[in-house]
């Protein structure tokens, strides 16, 4: 490490460090402290030790929310990434037509969630577009949002629809940074679409993957707005993801201490996850 490099690095990183300390590290510490208190957003927090955590582990609602979150995360992240990647590969190449398609796929991503959820409420309502499609597909109409067995999937479809375009763009950016001649070499070596995809594209994209996976998983495990807007967590809490439970506790029930404890647990889980991802790819830092 030369001093020049160290100085430059510190200089370039300084604004970000200040930002993250102010807007994330300090709040994180505050949350940690508050998680040991009872705090109703007024007055002063009351120290309660581990009570919040104790309540959490004994709460059925917490565990059911955790289960929903797990399901939600797995099925929001997995399909989104797979679809986005499969679509991004042909779309990453240059061309006006492809640029158009990229633009079209991107439309849901630019739609504010408030608008998007309303749209999907209509689509999912009895006799709506979803029913029409299901009937056309021979499945028949379904109570998409009003049956606890369907609601979570209905929510997932909307979420995937909404966010797949974003991931397409991220993958397109990643794909465009790959060395073109390696793909030529693979073509000459006789590798076809699938082989090239799995043995060249995917491994070369590993850094983009790390990013996408970490961001998608942390994002999914913290997102409550779609569920909040589309189903309010129902029916019968079937779509009450943990962050929604957290949000309700924080702002509807004014149980900020308890909400902080949930946030801390989520934080720890996600930290473990994120750092595993990082160490998995650390080896390829040149």
């Amino acid at each position, binding site marked *: 490490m030369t001093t020049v490099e160290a100085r430059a690095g510190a200089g370039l990183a300084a604004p970000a460090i200040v930002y993250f300390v102010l807007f994330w590290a300090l709040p994180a510490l505050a949350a940690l402290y508050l998680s040991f208190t009872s705090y109703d957003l007024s007055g002063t927090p009351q120290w309660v030790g581990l009570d919040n955590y104790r309540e959490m582990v004994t709460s059925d609602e917490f565990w059911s929310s955790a289960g929903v979150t797990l399901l939600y995360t797995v099925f929001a992240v997995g399909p989104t990434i797979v679809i986005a990647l499969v679509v991004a590969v042909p779309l990453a190449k*240059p061309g006006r037509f492809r640029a158009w398609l990229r633009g079209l796929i991107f439309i849901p991503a630019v739609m504010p969630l408030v608008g998007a959820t309303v*749209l999907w409420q209509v689509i999912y309502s009895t006799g*709506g577009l979803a029913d029409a499609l299901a009937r056309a597909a021979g499945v028949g109409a379904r109570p998409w949002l009003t049956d606890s067995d369907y609601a979570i999937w209905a929510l997932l479809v909307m979420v995937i629809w909404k966010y797949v375009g974003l991931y397409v763009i991220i993958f397109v950016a990643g794909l465009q940074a790959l060395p073109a001649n390696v793909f030529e070499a693979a073509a000459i070596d006789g590798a076809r679409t699938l082989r090239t995809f799995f043995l060249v594209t995917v491994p070369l994209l590993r850094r983009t993957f790390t990013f996408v996976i970490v961001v998608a998983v942390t994002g999914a495990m913290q997102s409550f707005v779609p569920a909040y807007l589309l189903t309010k967590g129902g029916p019968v809490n079937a779509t009450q993801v943990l962050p929604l439970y957290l949000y309700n506790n924080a702002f509807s029930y004014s149980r900020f201490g308890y909400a902080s404890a949930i946030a801390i647990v989520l934080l720890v889980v996600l930290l473990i996850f994120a750092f595993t991802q990082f160490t998995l790819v650390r080896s390829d830092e040149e």
Partner: protein
Amino acid sequence: MRIGRSLTAVALIGFVALMLLPLYSMVVLASAPDDGDLSGLGFHGFALFDNIGQIMTDGRFPRYLMNSLLIASAVSVLDVAISAAAGYALARLRFPGRAALLNLVVVALSLTPAIVMIPVFVMLSEIGWLNSYQGLIAPFAASALGVFLVRQFALGIPVQMLHAARVDGASELRIFLRIAVPLLRPALLTVLLLQFLAQWDNLIWPLIAASEQDLWTLPLALSSFEGEHGIVYHLQTAAALISILPPLVLFSFLQRYYVSGLTLGGVKR
């Protein structure tokens, strides 16, 4: 090979059509003169332009739109600048505090935003930044996502190129600005876009951090169509339709700067 190509094209178009199907519903809803038929399947009357006119003349909607544009632009530009610098430094420079920054980024990614709101709210109120544009912008001036994305892409810049620039006598800042930034273009555009969209869709923060309606943003305008006993669908979807346009225009404009082969021919490997 040609067959394969057209198959791909057909599959792609099919996929896009599927993606667009809900948007058809949206146009149907937005074009309705009232909320009578909510199936979203067939047009009954076409009042799209009336609806849009009604929204735009309401007075507050255009103001919210402008605020959103302003805040989303400021935030995304700031974020790109800060994230680009930090992400590049994380990936390609060794400096004291590097590990700390990386850890901060991961913490920021992993901490539920809702829980951060209150402390930040209190902090901004202490320094008197509530009800101001800076109070709406500062909390998003950088993002873990941006730093992280730039870092991942910067890891792909051949070090050899940076070495060459160093040997050429370029300062580290110059290398960052003249070599890294252009090579990171797709990543930076992506950060710009992601952050723009995040702000475009940011409902809760403007709501709580600003108590002046003049500072409010688009999602609040959209939420306003939701009353105590239901939603004014045709107007809300029409408004949502309008709100799609600015980011879409931004995206189609940015698209031309997404180009492959940026690193072509740089190093022999």
